[in-house]
């Protein structure tokens, strides 16, 4: 490990810490900027909405006031908030009292991560390959014909594609289930039937996200590849008599790929924002649907928990992408 790599790592760690700090602070400050205390307001709204009949408002409210020290100075509350977070204590759900927010978020997180990782890797790989092929002379007549369609799809929000997908493949053709993560009757086990069920339910949400982003990756890769193919080392490789396939993959893609990784890190946040709504459309049991249900039920601590986990998970994912970067680019290691 050289000095510059250490500096790079330290800078990235600092940024990761900063993003988490901002997320936590925003989560803490915004509800408190408004008049009244947040818990009382949320509970009052719950009551007027008529969904709070099933619980003892006074008891819940008192227990929160005591636990969060809402009568203490703001600075103390802020420190308490941090110490709770470090103990993974995000509070308790109002609607599903007394279930812990951590449990609910923990149950939803794997679904979201699985869906997003598959969709992103799929669209990133397919899109980049398509883009590279587009820049290759005479390459991909079929792909070229697909490009305008892909561009239009990438301009449309994922969740609108999701609605269209449900209509075509679940309502009209009845090929795939319209909603949920597994059949409602399924008992989750580690066997083929369960895996197949999970896959069947993931196809449409995954396709909505992937189809909506392939065009973006293809366009980015194309412009990078065009630049790379104009470089002298390509001419040299050609003069050496290397096969076109070798030039394409080892000389072209290998070099054009790096800026794509940077673009991936920069665009993950937009993908996540879109995916939250895709989950809502499919009622997929991930963080997006949990957030939606929490918003509808004014479930204050669940909203906060989901938002925080979304931001932190994404920040960590980007950190990992940035850690992979030096492995792919030997120049940065020097």
């Amino acid at each position: 490990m050289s000095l510059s790599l250490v500096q790079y790592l330290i800078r990235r760690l600092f940024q990761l810490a900063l993003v988490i700090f901002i997320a936590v602070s925003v989560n803490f400050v915004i509800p408190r900027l408004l008049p009244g205390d947040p818990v009382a307001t949320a509970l009052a709204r719950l009551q007027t909405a008529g969904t709070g009949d099933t619980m003892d408002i006074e008891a819940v409210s008192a227990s929160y006031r005591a636990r969060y020290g809402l009568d203490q100075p703001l600075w103390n509350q802020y420190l308490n908030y941090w110490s709770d977070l470090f103990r993974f204590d995000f509070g308790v759900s109002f609607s599903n009292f007394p279930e812990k927010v951590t449990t609910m978020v923990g149950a939803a997180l794997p679904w979201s991560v699985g869906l997003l990782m598959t969709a992103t890797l799929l669209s990133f790989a397919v899109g980049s390959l398509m883009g590279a092929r587009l820049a290759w002379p005479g390459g991909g007549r079929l792909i070229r014909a697909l490009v305008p369609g892909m561009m239009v799809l990438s301009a449309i929000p994922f969740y609108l594609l999701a609605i269209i997908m449900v209509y075509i493949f679940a309502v009209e053709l009845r090929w795939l289930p319209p909603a949920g993560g597994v059949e409602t009757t399924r008992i989750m086990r580690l066997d083929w039937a369960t895996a197949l069920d999970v896959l069947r339910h993931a196809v449409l949400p995954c396709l909505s996200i992937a189809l909506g982003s392939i065009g973006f990756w293809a366009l980015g890769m194309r412009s990078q590849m065009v630049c790379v193919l104009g470089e002298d080392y390509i001419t040299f490789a050609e003069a050496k008599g290397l096969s076109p396939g070798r030039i394409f993959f080892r000389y072209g893609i290998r070099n054009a790929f790096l800026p794509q990784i940077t673009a991936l890190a920069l665009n993950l946040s937009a993908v996540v924002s879109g995916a939250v709504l895709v989950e809502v459309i499919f009622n997929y049991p991930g963080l997006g649907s949990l957030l939606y249900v929490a918003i509808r039920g004014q479930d204050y601590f669940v909203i906060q928990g989901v938002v925080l986990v979304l931001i932190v998970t994404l920040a960590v994912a980007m950190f990992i992408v940035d850690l992979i970067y030096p492995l792919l680019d030997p120049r940065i290691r020097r």
Partner: protein
Amino acid sequence: MTARFRAYLPGGVGSRLGGTLFFGLAILGTIALLSIIGPFLTDASLAQVGAVTPRRPPGGDYPLGTDAQGRDMLALMVHATPATLKMGLIAGVIGVGLGSVLGLIAGQFGGWVDAVIRVVSDSLLTVPAIAILVVIAGSIDRMTTGIMALVVASLSWMFTTRTVRAQVLTIRERGYIEVARVNGETPMEILFREVMPNVMPYIVASFVGTVSAAILAIIGLEALGLGSQDEMTLGNTIYWAQQSSAVLRGFWWWWAPPIVVIAMIFVGLFLTSVGFDRFANPRLERR
């Protein structure tokens, strides 16, 4: 082989460029025109809940059908589109305005101000906007289209800030800035008379992208049910269609019109922004 690659570099780019911008502006112009004229031709009261027979397929008195709450879809679309566009434009103007000011300050004055602005904008760019917007929008008691525009604008400035800051940094090193300084112009005069005009094309180009991102965020928040409850917008229409399982119940005329309008808005903005980008960065044209 290199010659072959060079020859491949798109030759007709010039004409295609104009085409992109033209198509984008044409789509946006059509939508804008319909948004301005439409409300005069259709009766707004038909778009109220219970105004017409619910769940009618398109045809006869209802060219686009009616939804399950008794709203005429055509009237709803005609009045919802301008509302959504208006929110997007307000959020875009505020976002770009704020972003430009911060970018100019960061680029021109440097030092710790620059460091703070840069770090905050870079960090916010990596956060999924919807997460923070949900917390803000969820804390507001009575949402209106105006407040929605403000909420979304609060996270729409970072991209402009980055672009403007980068441009100011390169412009600052140019000869004519040095000349102006020697001529005795104050830093403020240099900023507004010398730097500003040269940054303008980039500000205009980032405006289109910002409006597009703002509309995306607004419709997203509305689809989550955080929009104004009693105003007609495209996002609210999607929300109600989703709430009533319009897709599963086969009311395609309920969800298809807002999707078509929204898709046209985004495709129009996308083409315009690609066209503008090449216009603002002529170097892209050669690629």
